C-alpha cells in the first residue's frame, strides 16, 4: 500500500470530505496560500478555492463562533487552530456554545463542526505553543475529543468526525505530522469512541494516547527482550472513552499503566485509572495503577528540559519493568 505522512493523510481526508459534501469548508489562520503553519492544508486552496479553504483573521474566538453559527445553519466547518494552545482564546465558543447548544435547545439542533488542534511538545516552541490540552476539552460534555496516532487513523477518524453530527475536537501531535504510514486511498471511516489494541501482550496493559502510543510501542519492544510482554492500547478517543476494551485487557494482564503527554494531574490517565478502579477489572489488578504523564510544569524551552517534561522511552521502560517485576 502506498505511504503518506500524517499531514498528507489529513489533507487527503479534508479533500475527500470536500469532494463528497459541498457543505464542508475549511477555515483557519494561514491555511490558504501559505498552506497552513504545518503544511497540512498545502495546496488545497488552489484545488478548492478561497471560499472553501478560508483564511481567517487572527480571531480565534470569532472563528470558533463562526464555525458554530455555520454548523447551526447547515454547513460542516472544519476549523484549524494554528496551535492547540490558542484554544484558550476560543474557550467561550467551544465550551459554552458548541458543546451546549444542542442540549440547551432540547436536542433540536446539531452542531456538526470539527476543530483541529496541532498539539504537544518537542518542537522548541516553549510554554505557549506546546501544550496538550486534550483533557481540558474532554472534560466537557457535548464535545467529542479524538487523538489519532497514525496516518491511517487520522484519515479515517477525521472523515468520521466530519460526518459526525456533534462537535468533534481533533488533537494532532505536531511531531506526528511527518510520520509515514500506509494509508488506503479510498475514503473510509474509523469509529469515534473505539480504542485500538496496537500490540497484544500478557504482562501489562499500557493505555497511551497520541505520540505516547509510539513511545510505548518502542518501550514494549525493549521489554520483550526481558520477557516482559506489554499490551499497548491506543485510546484514540478521549470522549467518549472506550472503557470496555481497557477492562478486557486489564482482566488479562492484571496491570495497568497510562502514558500520556498532558500534565499528569487530572489528565486522561487519571480518568482511566479511576474507571478501572471502579470497574469489574479491579479484582484483577495485581499491582498499583501507574500514570506516566507530563510533569507539573509549563513546557520549557531548553531541549533537554523539554524532553524531561514529558514521558520518554527510557522512563517508560523502567516504570513498566518495575511494575511488572513487582517493585512498584
Amino acid at each position, binding site marked *: 500500500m502506498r505511504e503518506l505522512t500524517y499531514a498528507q493523510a489529513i489533507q487527503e481526508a479534508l479533500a475527500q470530505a470536500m469532494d463528497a459534501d459541498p457543505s464542508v469548508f475549511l477555515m483557519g489562520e494561514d491555511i490558504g496560500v501559505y498552506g497552513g503553519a504545518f503544511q497540512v492544508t498545502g495546496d488545497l486552496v488552489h484545488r478548492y478555492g478561497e471560499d472553501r479553504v478560508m483564511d481567517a483573521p487572527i480571531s480565534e474566538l470569532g472563528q470558533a463562533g463562526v464555525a458554530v453559527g455555520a454548523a447551526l445553519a447547515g454547513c460542516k466547518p472544519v476549523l484549524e487552530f494554528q496551535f492547540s494552545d490558542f484554544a484558550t482564546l476560543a474557550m467561550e465558543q467551544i465550551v459554552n456554545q458548541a458543546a451546549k447548544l444542542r442540549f440547551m435547545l432540547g436536542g433540536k439542533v446539531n452542531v456538526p463542526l470539527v476543530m483541529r488542534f496541532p498539539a504537544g511538545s518537542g518542537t522548541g516552541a516553549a510554554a505557549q505553543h506546546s501544550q496538550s490540552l486534550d483533557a481540558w476539552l474532554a472534560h466537557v460534555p457535548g464535545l467529542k475529543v479524538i487523538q489519532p496516532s497514525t496516518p491511517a487513523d487520522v484519515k479515517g477518524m477525521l472523515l468520521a468526525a466530519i460526518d459526525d453530527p456533534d462537535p468533534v475536537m481533533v488533537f494532532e501531535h505536531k511531531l506526528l505530522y511527518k510520520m509515514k504510514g500506509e494509508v488506503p486511498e479510498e475514503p473510509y471511516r474509523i469509529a469515534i469512541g473505539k480504542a485500538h489494541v496496537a500490540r497484544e501482550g500478557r504482562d501489562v496493559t499500557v493505555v497511551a494516547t497520541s505520540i505516547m502510543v509510539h513511545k510505548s510501542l518502542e518501550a514494549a519492544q525493549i521489554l520483550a527482550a526481558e520477557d516482559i510482554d506489554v499490551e499497548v492500547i491506543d485510546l484514540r478517543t478521549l470522549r467518549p472513552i472506550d472503557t470496555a476494551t481497557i477492562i478486557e485487557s486489564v482482566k488479562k494482564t*492484571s496491570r495497568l499503566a497510562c502514558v500520556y503527554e498532558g500534565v499528569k494531574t487530572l489528565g486522561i490517565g487519571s480518568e482511566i485509572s479511576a474507571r478501572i478502579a471502579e470497574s469489574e477489572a*479491579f*479484582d*484483577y*489488578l*495485581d*499491582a498499583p495503577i501507574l500514570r506516566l504523564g507530563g510533569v507539573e510544569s509549563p513546557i520549557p524551552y531548553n531541549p533537554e528540559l523539554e524532553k524531561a517534561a514529558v514521558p520518554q522511552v527510557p522512563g517508560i521502560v523502567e516504570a513498566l519493568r518495575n511494575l511488572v517485576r*513487582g*517493585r*512498584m
Partner: protein
Amino acid sequence: MAVEVILPRVDMDMATGKISKWHHKDGDKVAKGAALFEIETDKAAMEIDAPADGILRNIVVTEGGTAAVGSAVAWIYAEGEAVTAAAPAAAAQVTNAATPTAAATAAPVASTTTLNGEAPRATPLARRLARQAGLSIAAITGSGPRGRITAADVRSTEEAKPAAAPAPAATPDPVQKLYAPGSFEVIPVDGMRRTIAARLTESKQTVPHFYLSVTCTLTTLMATRERLNAAAPKGADGQPLWKLSINDFIIKAMALALQKVPNANVTWAGDSILQHKSSDVGVAVAVEGGLFTPVIRNAEGKTLTTISTEMKELAAKARARKLVPSEYQGGTTAISNLGMYGIEQFTAIINPPQATILAVGAAVDRFIPVKGQPVLASQMNCTLSCDHRAVDGAVGAEFLQAFGQLIEEPLLMLA
C-alpha cells in the same frame, strides 16, 4: 466523637476473628470495661470489654460474622451524639461463613505482615485468587514492596501446600453419600474442631513419631500421696487446703525429668532445635466438643500443692472455654491422661511444636513378683511419643527412665 469498637488481636497468629456472641444489642447503654462481645478464636472464646461508656451503635459484624483484626465492628456513641452511617466499616465483615480451609490454614501459619498489627497488604487479584482457593490472605507471605501479597504469592502458596487443607480434604458431599440419607445428623465444625483436625493431621503426617513405654509401680507414690493429703491443714471453710492427685505427681515428675534430661526438653524449629530452659508441661483437658492443653509453666520449681491448685483453675477455665492464649500456648511437653476411663495403655499424637507427649494409662492392681513372692501392687503404664527429628530413641528412653524413677520413688522429687 464515637469510639470505635475494634476486633482486637487476642492470639499471636490471628488475622481474623469470629464474633460468637454480642452481650449487647444496638442502642444498648454500655459501660467501659464491661463485657461487650465474645470472639471465638481457634482455641477459645474471649470476652472483649467495651472501650468506652455510651450507647452501642452500628454493629457491623454480627454474631457468627468474621472480621479482620483491628477493624471496627461497632461504635460507641456518647449519649445524645448524632449517629453517622457506618459506611467505612461496611467492609469490616470479612464473611459470615468462613470457609473451613481459610480458618484451618490461618491457624498454624503466622503471617509476618500481621505481626505489627496492620492488615495484610494484597493486590485485588491476590485477594480474589485467595478467596477462590479458600486461602486466608493472612496466611500468605507477600513478596512485593512493603510485604504486598501478589497473585504470584498466592499461586506459590497454593502449590507449596497441596495438603495445606487437610481437614476438608474429604469434602462433605462424597462422605455423606456413603451413608443413607437421614441416617446421620450433620454437626457443623467450629474453630476449635477445625484447629484440632488441622494440627493433628499435620502432626501425624509430618512429625516422625516413635513410642516408648514404661510400667511404673505406684505403691510408694500412693502412700506418699495419702500421707500428704492426710496432713493437709483445714482452711476457713473446714475443707483441707489441698487434695493431691496422681496427675499432680506426674506433672512434677515430667518437669523434673526434663530438667534431668535437657536434650528431651526441645522443640523442632525447622533449621534449628530449641532447647528450653524451663519445663512447661501441658495437660490435656477434655471439654465438650474437643480438648484444651493448658500449660503449667516452670513446673520443675513448683510445689505439688501449687501445681495442684493451678491445674484445678486451668481445667475449670478450659471447660468454660475462657482460657487465654498465653495459658495454652508454648508448652515444652504434654501429658494426656485417660486413666480415669480405665484405659490401661494408649499412644498420643504430639502437639507441635512440642517434641514429646506422655500417654498415661489407668492405675491397675497387679500381682508382681517381689523376691519370688507375688505381691499386690498398683501399677500404671505410660507411653511417651517422641518427635524423632528432635529426640532420638536413647534420649527419649533416658527421659522416660528418669520419669519412672521419680514416680516410683517420689522422695527423689525433693532431692
